[in-house]
């Protein structure tokens, strides 16, 4: 919180600071539900792609190894399941790190609207 470039009447500045703080809190509260909603949308997209991507990578590796070693379809089967496991683990990690309600922990989400400049 700034205010050090103007030293006149510290009381007024303090009052202003209080009012700013109050205004900020109310802005925060107003924004919270919307933020969570938009976050949930990103979260849903993130989970889906994370799951699918891991399976795709697993299948690609298995298919590649099969082609290379001429061992159809064994590597494909093994790596498909490894891919599924990796996908589930990806999703599990996301939910672990975020507390389950968004792609990012609330405290880690910098808010767009609130800005405390000069």
């Amino acid at each position: 919180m700034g205010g050090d470039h103007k030293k006149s009447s510290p009381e007024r500045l303090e009052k202003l600071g209080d009012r700013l703080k109050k205004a900020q809190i109310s802005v925060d509260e107003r924004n919270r539900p919307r933020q969570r909603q938009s976050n949930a949308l990103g979260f849903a997209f993130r989970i889906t792609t994370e799951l699918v991507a891991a399976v795709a990578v697993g299948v690609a590796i298995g298919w590649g190894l099969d082609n290379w070693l001429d061992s159809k379809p064994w590597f494909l089967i093994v790596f498909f399941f490894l891919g599924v496991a990796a996908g589930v683990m990806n999703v599990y990690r996301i939910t672990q790190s975020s507390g389950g309600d968004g792609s990012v922990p609330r405290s880690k989400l910098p808010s767009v609207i609130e800005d405390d400049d000069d």
Partner: protein
Amino acid sequence: MASNTSQGSEGGLALDPMHQFEISRIIPIKFGSIDASFTNSSLWMVLTVIAVSALLLLGSKRIVPTRLQSVGEMIYEFISNMVRDTMGDEGRKFFPFILTLFCFILGANMLGLFALPVLLHPFTVTSHIIVTFALAALVWVGATVYGFYKHGFGYLKLFAPSGTPPVMLPLLVPIEIISYLSRPVSLSVRLFANMMAGHTMLKVFATFVVALGWAGIVPLAVMVGFTGLEVLIAFLQAFVFAILSCMYINDALHPSH
């Protein structure tokens, strides 16, 4: 607004919603067998860079910011907070990279939503998977190289989480490796799929507006809402891309998780 675009580009009712993703050469360039033509995609990348640079560099530098200036300042602070929160002080040196990445993706997403059918056919750079994959691969390869540079072979500990019983390692390590390899894939597919799906949807609804005549006002209203949603998604996807890049680089900084 996108309805104008589709009309302007093809006319008639048989509109192809995928036409907007076509690449056309503007200045053909060839190096041997490599086609390095300056395409409409390149053009919109250049426009994105120009627009974002203009916003961030040429804006006024007043103490009480103008609207545009405060947009630039907000983006700066937003990314600055994000970098500090996800990577700590060590991540500070990656701030310029993340800011550039975020601004480029956000700029490309947003510019693609504008329709200027008379002058230029709007094109969304990020709706092509090769573009998003190049960006994701840059982040992923960069983070991997940096991780090995910083920790040497200690970086491989990332694939063996601490506290795993040794019996589980032969099963867990391949899973971890697949999970690690899937990062650039999910990062790029997410951005590309979102942008492409959104733009295709807008085009499809735009054809309804034309096809339904007077009743077209209904899909038109839906499109207004969709456009708002697309703006949200454009921002959200740029944000998700940037924050995941931060997390991947954070893994390179601190491999034990």
